[in-house]
């Protein structure tokens, strides 16, 4: 066979194989899979990093930059991005109705996981996280690019926000009262116990210490391995079962501002398939709310300092 036709055929086969993969990739993709699918037109790659200048100084080739503080939230009202805002954002990133969207980012994929949660609320299908995020991609010495991708506008149309996927403050209070949910607090043990109200250095804080009454504490980091990848589904299942999260009751996850809890939401909902809602108001709302049930094991009293 002529070399030209041979390579054409090989290319067609490879494309066919990867496209078939892209439609059924599960909740996580490996760095290896992503590198071999960088040219795959079905795949749209989005970086959600929270540190400024990270994307620009080197991102996975073909990725579009999404800025968490302005793109995925409403910058005025405390809320997730509106349907119109997010739809425009995804179309600019070249996302079509049948695209496979891969999200990744810095700080352990926290904000990428937030992005996956927001996409879930608006009914976007075929979304996966790059397991290990930026950190693993860089650690493995894989290539980076510094120019943003120029992609033709996509045609994705979002559904109305599905409020069943999101827990609001009254839902959390009702869940505490009824005792029919498992509430997972993924913050550090010191925040959970009330020894500290927020970790060192964070200004967004609360005027009460402790946790949502009845919540169990499974710090988010227990769900990941040393290199930043999620633990295996079996390990995750055992880890959460130990804390009483076994899928028999619906779950609510929360943290301080809702981004790290998106990471645990992803593990429980997308990897283990449990019924999970993320409470994005989290402790910065709950710890400031009036008249809600709080458990403060350490007894720390807020003194205005």
């Amino acid at each position: 066979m002529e070399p030209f036709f041979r390579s054409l055929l090989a290319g067609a086969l490879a494309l066919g194989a990867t496209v078939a993969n892209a439609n059924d990739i599960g909740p996580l993709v490996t760095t290896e899979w992503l590198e071999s699918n960088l040219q795959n037109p079905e795949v749209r790659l989005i970086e959600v990093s929270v540190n400024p200048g990270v994307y620009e100084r080197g991102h996975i080739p073909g990725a579009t930059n999404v800025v968490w503080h302005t793109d995925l939230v409403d910058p005025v009202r405390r809320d997730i991005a509106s349907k119109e805002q997010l739809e425009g954002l995804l179309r600019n990133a070249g996302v079509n109705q049948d695209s496979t969207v891969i999200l990744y980012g810095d700080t352990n994929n926290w904000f990428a996981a937030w992005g996956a949660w927001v996409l879930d609320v608006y009914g976007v299908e075929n979304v996966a996280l790059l397991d290990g995020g930026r950190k693993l991609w860089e650690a493995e010495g894989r290539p980076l690019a510094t120019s943003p991708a120029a992609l033709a506008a996509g045609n994705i149309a979002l559904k109305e926000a599905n409020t069943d996927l999101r827990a609001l403050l009254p839902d959390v209070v009702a869940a505490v009262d009824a005792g029919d949910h498992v509430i997972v607090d993924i913050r550090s043990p010191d925040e959970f116990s009330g020894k500290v109200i927020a970790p060192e250095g964070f200004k967004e804080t609360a005027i009460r210490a402790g946790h949502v009454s009845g919540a169990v504490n499974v710090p988010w980091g227990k769900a990941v391995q040393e290199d930043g990848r999620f633990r295996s589904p079996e390990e995750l299942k055992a880890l959460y079962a130990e804390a009483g999260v076994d899928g028999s009751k619906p779950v609510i996850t929360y943290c301080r501002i809702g981004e790290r809890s998106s990471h645990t939401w992803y593990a429980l909902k997308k990897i283990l398939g449990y019924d999970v809602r993320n409470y994005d108001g989290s402790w910065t709302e709950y710890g400031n709310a009036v008249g809600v049930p709080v458990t403060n094991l350490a007894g720390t009293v807020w003194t205005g300092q």
Partner: protein
Amino acid sequence: MTFNRILPAAVFLGALIVLFLALPARDPLGRPLPVALALGAAFGIVLQRSRFCFWCNAADWFRDRNPSGLIAILAALAAGAVGHWVIAGAWLPDPSTGRLPPDAHIGPVSLTLAAGAFVFGLGMAVSGSCISAHFYRLGEGAYGSVIALAGAAVGFVLGFLSWNWLWLNDVISARVIWLPAFLGHDGALALTLALIGALWLILRQRGAGASTPAGRWPGVLGGVLIGFIATLAWFRIGPLGVTAELGSLSRTAAVDLGLLPDTLLGLDGLRGCATVVKEALLSRNGVFVVGLVLGAAAAAHAAGDWKPAFPAVRDVPRLFLGGVMLGWGAMVALGCTVGVILSGIMVGALSGWVFAVACLAGAWTGWRLRAVRQSV
């Protein structure tokens, strides 16, 4: 070149190499620290070899109408503007979206900026250098610069103490103006280069004969190299600047001593030489400045410019006071001649031009005051 020049130059070069190999590969933001050291060393070598000192350059003009120093600054701005245009066009293809390119020094245009730059210019005249030149002079053995830099640290603390009032009464309502947002990348570069070209022509026409100090690199060469280093720095590390680490050290010390208010309003959200409370021992700006001083020391020794000199006792108050002015000005203006004039103008920030004009006015005022004092 004699042995007693080569040996100390080699020692400083060796120190740079050891540090380069010993530094952690990345800072907490993922920026490569060894690259920061290397670029700092290159910056120090070029500053020292071409005597790229904002005060000396301005004073050459005030005294003799010798334009070569100011033309060197224009050359740096032109070369850097082209480099920043290449990068900004790649990082932010559409500049009209309201976003700013990452960590570029595009500050609010305010009275505070102008006042800070004016006082900084005065401080240059009083202490005999801007902050970057005090750093490279350390490498030449000018121990008086230590006193000026200590003064600058105190000036930073005074800046922090005045910050909340300045923020509430002025800076909060100031606008951040990035020329490419209005003119596009190409239009902003064209305007910047046109302004630089016009100033260049004026200097050439009004100036007396241009001359480079003996034994130094031509100013234009130094300027173009600085534009190149600034471009590389923005690409890999962050915009060129020399005050962030000094400001951070002052702020951290002042916080520890309980001198500062609990909150410095809005400060950490602004673009410029960030002066955050220190969390990591090694910051990219600290490493850059260490590289600068060591590079300048190696260059000074190799070239025979190493002239250790202790300041006269009667000069100590002047050096310290000038340093205080430099520190206060650099704090409230969010950077100095390097961080605001160079990095700001190169990237298309109006704040860079405002700083340049006010700083020059301050330097000229300082020049006049010194002249009056000497004639009395």
